[in-house]
Each structure stands twice: as structure tokens, then as C-alpha cells.
């Protein structure tokens, strides 16, 4: 168990360092950062001034290690546009994105688990095929388009929910539903295949032979085993959803980290963009680590791997 932990942790740290380097290189892609910051109407002196002010005249590797050292201490510099610390900006917006992600994941699990189990129990019947069809439709639905449709139907025609903004809990309902769509198909397929495998195994036959009730077999013996990979993947899915929330936050003008990133990209506010990429990547790395741990805790067979 300890060996397993140490190995996963080492990989996670190395990946985190790679991502740090990549997000530094990302903003240097355009060649000269000073020109990008200065904008199209800047004079040569302006650019020179900016280059000196932001330390862009130093050698690239000096800039890199300076940036890396500060980033490791949680210092991402100042935002060019908001004129505050980038770390503070992200801290302010993160709860909104987290709430959205967790609500989305919760809705996804509430839909995917029962439907997945149902499909497995009724394997190869019309119920099963309908569930798989739902998964296919969910996969093919463009999230921003679904968001707009919900705005027209639930927001305008029925007037049940506010169309956009951040004010109350009601503002989270539509974005969470849309976000959940990205996770439902994979979670549902995984629940279904895990359940089918579990239901075909020897311990289920034993449970049946003992005369246990159908429900008890399904929940206590079938689902508990099928759930292991689902729980682990759910953590990874949350990471993907946080990364994908930028589209949904922009559609609904929900002022989370994703919206912040979109605003900053259109305003050439590179320190913020860089920091958001980094923070979301680090959260994802943390979640995959958590997923590996959950897997090991829930399924003792994996610990020696």
C-alpha cells in the first residue's frame, strides 16, 4: 500500500511540474509577450517600457525560474486588468465554479446510477436500449446549445428560472443541468457494464442460492462491486467538468473561474489565464490521485498493483 502511494504521488508531482512548465510556455507562444500586452496601437517606447516593467527583458530561463519559484509559493503575480493579486481573484471565484461542478456531478450521479443499474438488470431489452440511446443523445448534445435552449424554454417561455447571472441558488440550476450532461453518458455506461459483470459473477449466484431478496442482491452484492470504478471515475469526471465549465459559465454569465478565464483571454490578461490553467490542472491532478486512492481503499485487490 505504501509503495503504491509513493509511486502515485511521485508521478503526480512530476506531472504537476510538467504542467507548470507548459503553462509558462503557453504565454510565450506568441513570441513577444510585451507586444501582446501593449495591444495593437502601442508605440515602440510603450513596448520597451512594458518589457522592462514586467521583467520581460531578462533571459527566458531567469523569467521561468522566477515565475516557477513564485508560483510554488502561490504567488501568480498581478492581473493587468483587475489590478489585484491573481491568487485573490481566483480564490474569490473558485467557490462558484466548485459549487457548479459539485452540483453537476451530483445531478449526473442521480441520473446515471439508477439508469445504469436498470439497463444492466434489463440487459438486451427495450429498457436497456433506451438507456443506451439516452447516453448517445447526451454525448451528441453541444453543451452551449443545450444551455441556450434551456434559457429560452425554462427562462423565457416558462419563466421558472433566471436566464443568467450569479445572484442566487436558482442561477445554478440550469448551468448544473447542462454540465451534468457531459458526465452522464460515461458514468451510465460504466455503471451498466460494471453491473452486468457483477451480476454474472459467482457471488451473485451464491447470494441467489441462499434465497436473498432481489433488492438485497442488487444493492448489497451487485452494486457495491460495480460502484468501485464508478466512484473512482466520478472524481476524475469532476476534474473534467471543472475544466469544461468555462463554456457553460460564459453562456450563463456565471462569474466563476471559467468566466474569469474567458474575460482575461479577451483582455490579454495573461497572468490570470496562466494561473487558471495551472490551478484547474492541479485540481485535476489532485482528483486523479484521490481517485487512485479511493480505488485502492475500496478494492483491496488493487493495492499490490
Amino acid at each position, binding site marked *: 500500500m505504501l509503495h503504491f502511494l509513493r509511486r502515485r504521488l511521485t508521478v503526480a508531482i512530476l506531472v504537476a511540474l510538467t504542467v507548470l512548465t507548459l503553462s509558462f510556455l503557453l504565454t510565450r507562444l*506568441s513570441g513577444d509577450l510585451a507586444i501582446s500586452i501593449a495591444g495593437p496601437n502601442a508605440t515602440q517606447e510603450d513596448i520597451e517600457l512594458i518589457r522592462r516593467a514586467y521583467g520581460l527583458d531578462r533571459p527566458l530561463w531567469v523569467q521561468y525560474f522566477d515565475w516557477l519559484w513564485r508560483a510554488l509559493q502561490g504567488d501568480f503575480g498581478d492581473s493587468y486588468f483587475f489590478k489585484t493579486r491573481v491568487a485573490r481573484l481566483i480564490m474569490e471565484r473558485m467557490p462558484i465554479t466548485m459549487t457548479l461542478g459539485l452540483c453537476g456531478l451530483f445531478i449526473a450521479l442521480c441520473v446515471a446510477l439508477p439508469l445504469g443499474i436498470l439497463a444492466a438488470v434489463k440487459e438486451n431489452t427495450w429498457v436497456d436500449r433506451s438507456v443506451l440511446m439516452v447516453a*448517445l443523445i447526451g454525448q451528441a448534445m453541444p453543451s452551449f*446549445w443545450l444551455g441556450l435552449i434551456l434559457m429560452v424554454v425554462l427562462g423565457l417561455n416558462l419563466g421558472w428560472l433566471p436566464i443568467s447571472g450569479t445572484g442566487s441558488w436558482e442561477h445554478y440550476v440550469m448551468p448544473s443541468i447542462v454540465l451534468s450532461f457531459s458526465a452522464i453518458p460515461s458514468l451510465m455506461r460504466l455503471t451498466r457494464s460494471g453491473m452486468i459483470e457483477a451480476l454474472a459473477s459467482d457471488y451473485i449466484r451464491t447470494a441467489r442460492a441462499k434465497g436473498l431478496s432481489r433488492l438485497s442482491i442488487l444493492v448489497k452484492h451487485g452494486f457495491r462491486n460495480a460502484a468501485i470504478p464508478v466512484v473512482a471515475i466520478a472524481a476524475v469526471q469532476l476534474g473534467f467538468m471543472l475544466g469544461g465549465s468555462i463554456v457553460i459559465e460564459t453562456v450563463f454569465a456565471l462569474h466563476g473561474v471559467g468566466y474569469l478565464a474567458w474575460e482575461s483571454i479577451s483582455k490579454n490578461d495573461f497572468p490570470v489565464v496562466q494561473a487558471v490553467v495551472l490551478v484547474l490542472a492541479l485540481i485535476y491532478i489532485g482528483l486523479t490521485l484521490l481517485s487512485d486512492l479511493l480505488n485502492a481503499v475500496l478494492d483491496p485487490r488493487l493495492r499490490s498493483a
Partner: protein
Amino acid sequence: MSTVLQPAGAGNRRRIRRNAGAIFGAGIVGFITFVAIFAPWLAPYDPFTIDLGRRVIPPMWMEGGTPANILGTDQLGRDYLSRLIYGARVSMIIGVATVITSGIIGTFLGVMGGFYGGRVDDAVMFAITARLSIPVVLVALAVAGLLGTSFTLVILVLGLLLWDRFAVVARSTTMQIRNLDYVAAARCAGCSPMTVLLKEVLPNIATHLAVVATLEMALAILLEAALSFLGLGVPPPLPSWGLMISEAKEYMFFSPWIIMIPGIALFVLVLGVNLLGDALRDMLGTDLSR
């Protein structure tokens, strides 16, 4: 005749239904490919011609529609059907080009890792893990924000980001066949590693990669639409379906059809590609769903 005939029961019926999905998917993808290729001959008007006197005319079956513009006109008076037809080109080119780019990168990495194992494999696994931790949409948007939007940039960025599943599948399938007899035989016959990889390994994992290709193509089409919707994908006035939705969204509360039409086109195309992929996967009997 000693062969026992299978009763025409559940198995057959399932096969027919599966085929129905495959035929449906192939039909959709085939139709949209046809439309994309022959767009200049099929489109009734030029998709870029602006006519401000004839803005937001609804489709012909709705009140106020005219048979002159079957699907109506957009906010600049451009014929909606023509834009939709040319939009098929954007989606198909982006989908195919991205899959080719990411397929080459992912397959190369995966085959190397799976074939050589050891250190090489560790490096490949590490690259996959690192790639997965990068938020795709965000990075694609940031790159477009820095370098400016262009058609080729979208393909390049998506191609460089979406190779992970190719690598995972190429790696695991290569590992499975690495030690099979025919690969060993080719090695014993003195074939160079390059020949073994190209002539023995690659053809035998190709079908698995084809399944991944459909999944990635669907994903690339959706991502391009999302990027264009956010204003950092395909630049206007190109008629990308995502961009059409974005440009029309101020009108959606009064005329919802204006976002429904390109949205449905997008949905149907992605559904078709996914159906085709599912059919392919069922034929192979492998489960790559994730």
C-alpha cells in the same frame, strides 16, 4: 450436415438492430459528407452575400417565411440554408483533419510504448497523464486568444491536444499482440523493428484505432463548435455551425428557430459519427467506452 443451425432468435434480432444503428449512422455521416463536398453546387445562394433589407426571415414553413429562402435568412440577411451547407464543410474538415493529426501523434506514442515497454513505456504513460491534466477547452481558447483565430490554428490546437485516447488504445492493443506468434515469427525472420511495426503491428490494431477515430472526430466537431461559439475558433464570416449559433443568439428569444437549425445540424452529425463508432465497436466486440 452436422452443423447445428442457430435458431433465428434474440441473437439475430440484436444483430439487425445493431445494423440499424450502423446504417443510420453511416447514412447521416455519408449525407453530410456529400453535402460538404458538393456545397457549391447544392447551396442555392452565396453564403457570404449580405442583404440587410432581408434580415431574420423565418424558414418557409413558418409565418412570414418565403420559398425563396427555405431555411430563412440570418441577422445579416444571408441565406441560412446556404450557410448551413457550407458549415458542413467546416465541421467535416475540422473533424477529419484533427483526427489525422491526433491519430498520428497518439498512435506513434502508443505503439512505441506498447512495443518497447520499459523506460519508453514509462515516458509514454507519463506524457498521457500530463496531457490528460491539461484542460483542453481552456488551453485552446488561450492559444487562440494569443495567436489570433484561424481555421488552421483550430485544427492544429485540437490535433495536438486530442491524441490521448489514441495513445492509450494503441499502447494496450500493441501490448496484447507484441508477444503473439506472428510478431515473433516476423522478428525471427530478421525483419527490422520498423518493418515489424508497420507490417505486423499497425494493420492489426487499425480497427481498434478506427473506433477511437470516430469518438475523437465527434469530440473535435463539438469542441470546434464550442470554440467558435465563444468567438475564439473559426473566424467570421466563415459559416461554422457554432459561430452561426453565437452570432444569432441575440435573436433567439424572439426567433428560437435561428439557434435551433444549426444546433440540430451539429447534434445530428455528432450523433451519426457516434452511432457509426458504436457499430464498429460492437463488430469488434471490444469495450472502449469510458
